[in-house]
């Protein structure tokens, strides 16, 4: 591995982690909006 590979791999790892976190947030938002809709329609 060259000295230039390491920062590039680190950057890719960070971007992957950010993407996973973003997916998690979006899924949580979908679930939350679903729950809000159920509650609002229920009342």
């Amino acid at each position: 591995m060259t000295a230039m590979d390491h920062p590039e791999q680190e950057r890719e790892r960070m971007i992957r982690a950010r993407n996973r976190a973003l997916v998690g947030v979006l899924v949580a938002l979908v679930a939350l909006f679903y729950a809000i809709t159920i509650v609002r329609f229920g009342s």
Partner: protein
Amino acid sequence: MSDLSETTPHILLPLTGASIGGVGDYVEILKPRVMSLVVFTGLVGIAVAPGHLNPVLALVAVLCIAVGAGAAGAINMWYDRDIDAMMARTAARPLPAGRMMPGEALAFGIVLAVGSVLMMALAVNSIAAGLLALTIAFYVFVYTIWLKRRTPQNIVIGGAAGAFPPLIGWAAVTGDIGWPAVSLFTIIFLWTPPHFWALALYRAGDYAKAGVPMLPVVAGPRATKRQMLLYTLALWPASAAPWVMGVAGAMYGLGALALSILFTASAIRVWIDDSERSARLMFGFSLLYLLLVFSLLLVDHTAAGAARGAWP
């Protein structure tokens, strides 16, 4: 304000395009420790308010308060990145440390601020959403941009931003702003100056270096300690107000009074003891004070509700 983005280390890395801010950095710029206190006081506002809020909507309200507070923190970190780099306490934050681009933090903060206010308006009510928008705007424009670098009264007036969450919580349930909620606001408003000045007493060198006119820097430790003592005395009637207004019972009232006496005692100790240790102890106790006062309120209210056969 200087633009550190031109000098920060990550610009020197052979990276193009996207920045290198990690998930942890995004969490850090939301100021999670401040957020936890904000969430707790907002939750207490929801719990003690008369009426009923569906648990899902209560969760949404708390989430919006948390995200809104985090957004304000992120925008604050964006604006203050130049002075943060000069202070030991804040130099390792993502922006001054060069782990995140300034524009990233600003965009993140704005998206979360708008998102949290819209969500509050759609799911809960417009009064709570309006108060949340006011809180974020107050913290960003009044405290961060206008007062922080101009006056030693920065945290006295700016502290109002941190006092809004119980008011938002109350408004989420009732749809209005009641006097008992104002009493909770007053407790946090009066608690903020002695809390931050205790920190500023042993970080005065840092603030002076960054050019932030905190009271110990501008007026000296003696004048600061006198002000701290006066604010802790003002907390005696303020912390008893929820009891007087009937939001809480004698258990809360006596407990809050005892805690206020201890808070004043710690201010007296700071007054007579010039060591850094006494200021550190007071800073630590101030956090415990607010946590315990609001916990007592929650416990007392829950116990009263259980005695009536209603919960909470």
